[in-house]
């Protein structure tokens, strides 16, 4: 690939917001509860369609479809509120309700680690899988290391390196320096400590 510094050929015009109003900076994307929303919306849709359809059947003087209404009414007529099944069903309903409420109220987990930027309207992030890959790549560039795998906790990156060298003196320190340099290049806002373990030797 070749380097190019030619500016984009976009017509020089002024966005309506410039130059006096400073818009808020971008934010890193967070979880948006899509899976939960799709599941709940689908169940709601099914229940609502079934209720509407059965109500229309009753209203038009037809039999309910696939439901024995009188049997259900008889069963509910014979079941008291303090029946164990009712208690369990009510508790289950409460648990699901609490879970959905918690999902709505609590902030969703962060998907990206924020990297430091000097420009306040620029926000940069990397997700944990890609950070692990970057650190693995830095370790694998060290001569003598044949494989590297990084585990990440909130504040520590632990990289297990494998070498096929018979003499591995200083290898751990060299790998640690390489990983620390890569981490400094990325510059996460929340500091991450680096640990390197020589996990084994692999014969060529």
């Amino acid at each position, binding site marked *: *690939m070749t380097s190019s510094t030619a500016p984009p050929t976009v017509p020089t015009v002024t966005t309506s917001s410039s130059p006096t109003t400073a818009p808020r900076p971008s934010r890193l994307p967070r979880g948006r509860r899509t899976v939960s929303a799709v599941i709940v919306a689908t169940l709601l849709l099914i*229940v*609502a369609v079934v209720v509407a359809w059965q109500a229309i059947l009753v209203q038009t003087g037809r039999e309910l479809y696939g439901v024995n209404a009188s049997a259900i009414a008889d069963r509910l007529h014979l*079941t008291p509120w303090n029946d164990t099944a009712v208690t369990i069903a009510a508790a289950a309903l409460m648990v699901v309700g609490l879970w959905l409420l918690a999902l*709505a109220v609590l902030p969703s987990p962060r998907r990206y680690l924020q990297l430091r930027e000097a420009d306040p309207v620029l926000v940069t992030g990397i997700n944990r899988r890609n950070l692990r890959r970057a650190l693995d790549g830095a370790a694998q560039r060290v001569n003598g290391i044949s494989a590297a795998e990084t585990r990440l906790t909130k504040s520590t990156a632990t990289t297990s390196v494998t070498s096929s060298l018979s003499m591995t003196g200083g290898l751990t320190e060299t790998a640690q320096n390489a990983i620390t340099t890569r981490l400094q*290049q990325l510059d996460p806002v929340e500091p991450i400590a680096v640990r390197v373990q020589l996990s084994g030797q692999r014969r060529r």
Partner: protein
Amino acid sequence: MSARTARGNRIGLGLIGVVLLAGGGYALARSLGAFGAEQAAAPVYSERAASWIHAQQPWIWITLAALGVIVAVLALRWLLVQLRTERLGRIAMDTDLGNDPDSGSGRTTLPTTALTAAVGQEIDSYPGVRAVKVRVAGQPDHPELRLEVTIEPDADPARIRTRIVGEAITHARTALDTQFLPTQLLLSVSRPSRTVRTYI
């Protein structure tokens, strides 16, 4: 998906959660005797409830059907908005129409494809960059740049970021004649090769 959809999901999940919590809480309290032993021993579907439903016919079924249809439409809309994206097709511009006193200045819109293609091509040309996705989000008069840049595992991320900020984003700001162009940069790293190296 847009931030509006994320907010809608929170509201929708919260509302359903409150309804289930209230219904389950009432049933559990009644089941455990919070409203008295007599209420707890009463049948779930009492004679009184049956006669009330019977007395409300036919309106109860019409109301139930209407409610069902309304909830179904809302649920369907909730599902469809999950497909909504933040992608912006055009940017609103204030244009200076030149020296002609009659023409003055006007407002026009510009397709975002020109900007995204130019920024994408520029970043793609940097050494160490494997792939770039560029899109414009936000409002037509407050555009935001969204960059997804995949770099090689052995590339220097600091150098690439410096070039993106100092060149590509600066050029985009210059082209739009704005000093504020909120930008979100998401870095990805391509999978490192597992080849065994030769050493010292």
